């Protein structure tokens, strides 16, 4: 009649915890309302974000001409604090590839015969393409380019070329904003906000999953039953996937209605990325709840995670402009990868093929959090 509880994993017991959690979630109206209210409020608050003044953005130079002027221009760019030249190439298409996959934020293209045409007074074009899916990053440096080029070339325009130093510059700078041509800040902020909201609410909600049971005294009875740690873990986290899904939908709809944010990529890829991200955060929260002794501690630890997520993920400041140590921390944050995934999919039209680079780090952290939580779970009350 009573099968002993030696089954390593029981779907029925997991379902018991899942259903219980679902009912409790439904009863806790205030929390439920807050979880759905947060996305809307945050969206309105952050939707019109402030510009910042980023520096040291990675630039790739596609050089199809050479000469003293070109060398001087590149040297000036190197010297400027706006750009870090990460590569100089003469192969067509390579620069654009780097721009697309996010290694470079800018592509500077110097056309063939640049110097000859300049000397002939033909006003050759210098093309600068910016990854404007992060418009904060793209804005300032684009404006600075005029000045950098003028100063770089002025010393060359002497002697017979002195005449070219008068009037309009003897070249033309063509700016190209790619991926977000109108450079709307909300385009970048809103998808980023989705990640921030999910990080905050998902981690917070599961961070009290176990501490709440301990504090209310229900843990003792729960542990006295045959229920296993993995069953508790899955049963307690999965109900909140629904909440995360609703939040995601809310942000997408509000983003569309309020800020007319386009959705250019694959919906399937987006769903996959969002699901993995939501689960990663739920597991992170659950891991916290296996460590924290009280709900208060759980909240403090949540904020301890939340702050770097906001500051170092590329949400507040352009990732490429951050110092190396900050980037290293940022790479370890789930939000960093999710932001890239969302921008890639929503603004750059990415599909399944484009998400792997940032999906696998998420999957690895998810696995680590899960194993960590299982290892930390206390089967006894000591």
């Amino acid at each position, binding site marked *: 009649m*009573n099968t002993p509880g030696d089954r390593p994993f029981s779907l029925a017991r997991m379902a018991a915890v899942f259903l219980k959690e679902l009912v409790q979630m439904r009863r806790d109206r205030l929390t439920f309302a807050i979880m759905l209210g947060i996305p809307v409020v945050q969206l309105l608050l952050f939707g019109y974000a402030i510009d910042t003044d980023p520096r040291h953005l990675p630039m790739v130079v596609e050089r199809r001409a050479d000469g003293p002027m070109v060398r001087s221009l590149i040297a000036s760019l190197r010297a400027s604090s706006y750009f870090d030249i990460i590569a100089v190439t003469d192969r067509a298409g390579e620069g654009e590839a780097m721009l697309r996959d996010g290694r470079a934020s800018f592509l500077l293209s110097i056309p063939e015969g640049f110097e000859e045409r300049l000397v002939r007074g033909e006003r050759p074009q210098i093309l600068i393409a910016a990854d404007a899916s992060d418009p904060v990053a793209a804005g300032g440096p684009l404006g600075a380019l005029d000045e950098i080029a003028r100063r770089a070339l002025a010393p060359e325009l002497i002697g017979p070329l002195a005449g070219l130093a008068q009037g309009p510059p003897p070249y033309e700078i063509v700016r190209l904003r790619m991926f977000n041509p109108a450079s709307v800040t909300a385009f970048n902020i809103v998808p980023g906000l989705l990640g921030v909201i999910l990080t905050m609410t998902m981690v917070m909600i599961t961070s009290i999953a176990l501490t709440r049971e301990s504090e209310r005294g229900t*843990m003792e009875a729960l542990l*006295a039953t*045959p229920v296993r740690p993995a069953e508790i873990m899955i049963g307690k986290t999965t109900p909140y996937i629904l909440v995360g899904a609703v939040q995601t939908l809310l942000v997408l709809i509000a983003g569309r209605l309020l800020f007319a944010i386009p959705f250019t990529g694959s919906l399937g890829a987006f769903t996959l990325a969002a699901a993995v991200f939501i689960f990663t955060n739920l597991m992170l929260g659950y891991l916290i709840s296996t460590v924290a002794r009280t709900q208060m501690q759980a909240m403090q630890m949540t904020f301890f995670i939340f702050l770097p997520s906001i500051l170092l993920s590329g949400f507040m400041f352009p990732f490429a402009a951050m110092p190396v140590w900050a980037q290293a921390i940022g790479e370890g944050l789930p939000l960093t990868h999710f932001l890239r995934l969302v921008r890639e999919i929503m603004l750059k039209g990415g599909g399944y093929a484009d998400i792997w680079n940032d999906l696998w780090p998420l999957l690895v952290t998810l696995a680590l959090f899960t194993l960590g939580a299982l290892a930390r779970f206390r089967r006894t009350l000591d």
Partner: protein
Amino acid sequence: MSEAPAIAVEGMTKIFGGRKVVDAVDLTVPRGAIYGFLGPNGSGKTTTIRMVCGLLRPDAGRGTCLGHDVIADAQAIKGRTGYMTQRFSLYEDLSIRENLDFVARLYRLSDRRARVDRALEELGLAARSRQLAGTLSGGWKQRLALAASMIHAPDLLLLDEPTAGVDPKARRDFWDQIRKFSARGVTTLVSTHYMDEAVQCDAIAFIAYGRKLLDAPIAEVQARVGLFARLVRGPGLDAIAEALRGAAGIAVVARFGAELHVAGTDESALDRALAAIAGRPGVTIGPIEAGLEETFIHLMAQSTDTFR
């Protein structure tokens, strides 16, 4: 099969913050027995019960519970044990039915619905099954928790003060039920502070300051302690009690309504002490059997002397 005891642990020790809260306690509970677990507040009853069902890891000691090792095989014990915690440990934000349903699911009961219905019926809560558990009165919470711990018809019941705050009628029903279970071979270890419940047990283990002082069938308890008692009646009992307390040869002075029970381990010393008040007008002194209550008050007083 019925030869092996339901609980057989020895040397169980638990240390909290450098203090031995439970100190080398042995416990042998035969199958089908109703074992009373007594002792003053903070003596280590709850801690011992938790170690027996695998909720606390003992710092020393070993043993078996339902034939399974209490340390290595806690999982197997849990499936066949019902544990009622001292503190209410059901979900206040779930309804009565949802709570029972949750527990029944955790034990993977195939006839879950029928069992939950029956439990509600027996509790007399069928009509209020949708009420949130948190809104129940204290006694009803207790009765619900008890029902939840028994829903999977366990072989062993570990009940930590199950009837605290429960009314006399419900307590009587509860003990009737425990005896019915016992007849079917279910073993019960129950902690209590009520003497009228202690006498319902087959045997009693008494612990104080983490050490077991007494472990005997209920009928032998008084004889083991060897307490002699006298009944004092008459006017001015308060003054008499005051005069007797602490006198040589007197271990216990306990007031029962309009009577005073006076007890000591040395019969002649007891009578010598009582001679001092025998002459007061209207006061009568007669012999009585030492009761459980005097016995335990004596044990507690003795343990204070020994360990403090």
